[in-house]
């Protein structure tokens, strides 16, 4: 096992796949010699050269359009959209072209590509550079949606996304980039669509994604140590495909489910999860499913304000306790 940062794990995954498959190419704004503005593609230009690792103009339409055209004619592009907020600039490609062309062409056209993008809050960049937009992508039929929480998953899931025959939107969380942890050495690929249970508990099931996963784990420690509440914590890892089996089994086991979501409230991914759970294992629930989310506001820039709206460890603890108390009161 090697200690790698999340950002180095991203680069390691791309390098791993570029070494094994000549069809894999990487491009985006500042992705080549500069190594990416988030330094997630450092070393790739040096190893693979300007033919396979390219800089583009600030042209999100051209980036995703070119990625699609390349993917449908035999390449396996990894295209970077610098901030996930900028997906709004090229949403036509995400929602109308890349997602739907296989279906519309009755399977004549395949689009094996990865859209990598930096997602989430924590950098105090304000409302247009800090959003969590994984739920946007989740709403479109034809897209796979992946958001790793650890360096090992950043490498393994990105490798799987690059090998996947379908388009994958891969959300790299900005506030996790510097996190270091063990990553398996040698070839590492994690299958898409498998949630991971990170902690087994008997009282509640906490379902989280990306940067909310480490916060949920910390909250679980506090809940156990200070409040005697034993929590299962599950990292969804991918929203599409969704590991419904695991989340239903883990939800049924405790009967109390909490989602921790960074996306704003309305139509956040937890709403769909809650819908699946209540529809299929209603009888196993001992109380309402509680969604802990960023409120339905744009993200503010100031650190105090940003911290006040994105679910924190303290807020997760408080909302879990309130959820359980309201059940007792009822």
């Amino acid at each position: 096992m090697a200690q790698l940062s999340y950002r180095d794990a991203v680069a390691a995954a791309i390098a791993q796949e570029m070494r094994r498959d000549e069809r894999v190419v990487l491009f985006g704004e500042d992705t080549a010699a500069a190594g990416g503005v988030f330094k997630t593609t450092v070393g790739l230009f040096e190893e693979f050269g300007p033919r396979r690792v390219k800089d583009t103009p600030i042209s999100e339409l051209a980036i995703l359009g070119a990625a699609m055209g390349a993917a449908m004619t035999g390449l396996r592009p990894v295209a970077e959209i610098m901030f996930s907020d900028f997906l709004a600039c090229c949403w036509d490609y995400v929602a109308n072209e890349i997602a739907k062309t296989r279906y519309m062409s009755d399977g004549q056209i395949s689009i094996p590509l990865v859209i990598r993008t930096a997602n989430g809050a924590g950098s105090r960049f304000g409302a247009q550079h800090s959003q969590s937009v994984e739920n946007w992508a989740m709403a479109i039929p034809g897209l796979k949606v992946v958001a790793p929480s650890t360096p090992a998953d950043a490498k393994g899931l990105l490798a799987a996304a690059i090998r996947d025959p379908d388009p994958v939107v891969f959300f790299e969380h900005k506030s996790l980039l510097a996190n270091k942890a063990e990553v398996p050495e040698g070839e590492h690929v994690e299958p898409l669509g498998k949630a991971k249970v990170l902690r087994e508990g008997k009282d509640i099931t906490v379902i989280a994604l990306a940067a909310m996963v480490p916060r949920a784990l910390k909250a679980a420690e506090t809940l156990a140590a200070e409040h005697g509440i034993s929590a299962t914590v599950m990292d969804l890892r991918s929203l599409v495909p969704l590991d419904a089996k695991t989340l239903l089994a883990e939800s049924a086991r405790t009967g109390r489910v909490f989602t921790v979501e960074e996306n704003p409230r309305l139509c956040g991914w937890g709403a769909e999860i809650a819908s699946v759970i209540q529809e299929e294992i209603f009888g196993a629930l001992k109380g309402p499913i509680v969604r802990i989310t960023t409120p339905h506001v744009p993200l503010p820039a100031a650190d105090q304000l940003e911290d006040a709206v994105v679910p924190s460890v303290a807020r997760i603890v408080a909302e879990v306790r309130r959820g359980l108390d309201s059940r007792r009161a009822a």
Partner: protein
Amino acid sequence: MSVTQKAHSAQRNQEIPEATRLRLFKLQVEIRYCEKRAYDLFLQNLVKGTSHLALGQEAVAAGFAAAMNPDDYTFCTYRGHHHTLARGAPMLSVLGELMGRQCGLMKGKGGSMHLTSVAHGVMGSYAIVGAHLPIAAGAAWSAQYRGTKQVACAFFGDGATNIGAFHEALNLAAVWKLPVVFCCENNMYMEYTPISAVTAVKHPAADRAASYGLERQVIDGNDADVVYSAARDAFAKARSGGGPSLIECLTYRHSGHSRADPAKYRPKEELEEWLKRDPVTLYRNRLLASGVAEGTLAKIESEAMTKLDQATEAAKASPTPSLESAMSDVWADGGNAWRN
């Protein structure tokens, strides 16, 4: 109309072999007949949804298709029946798709605006204006990367020149020196509005070429020989590593924007003037004048009509798609599962 630059002279047109010229005629006739049939089928309520006919723009499709290699890539717009047919997609498959039948190119899952026939190099018809220009650039990049000598060609209307994707695609194609040909079919109207009323320059595509270091090319899009020559040159340039071209073809659609549009906004004199320059009639007369026998042309026409009638009857007889197909091919495994 003004053909201001890059005149493809009559002398040059003479270089086109007779077999190619007969093919250009045949393609135009087949497209003309098939588009008229599509309209008839719409009136019979056998074509549902919408359709955007290319009546009057046949020479652009024929000229470009005849200049392409079989493995070159075509990317077209929702007005794409003519380009799809010109690349060799069968009339049955095209009409079947318009009618939503099992025999359709995409078995009814795409419809008129999304005709796709990968086997014929038609990599899709795109209904979001301008979206396919960057996609064509990407396909060209892939061809360049793979060293296949393939060329990608994007066809689009004058209206697409005012959308960002047009400019982003041209810039990227020029910077990466991609083997891509951008063909603007300037039919003078963006939907219902004259393009001149909403564009800062006279020639919506060609007058932007210099911004991307490209040659300004405006050609007579109703003359299949002129179109063929310009396309042939552009493809040769792309294939030899010379980078992208942008060609503005002046043409005119004989019908409205879509089936819902009677095109009352067009001056009567303007329409009459352009009908006199009907590309199919113009080309037929030229072939006759150059010594091709009337019987040869009549035979091409009657064969096209026979083929079309057979295709029409077969499409009408084709079953509707299985309802299960609505749930297939979301993913590469053929299915639609988003969860386990």
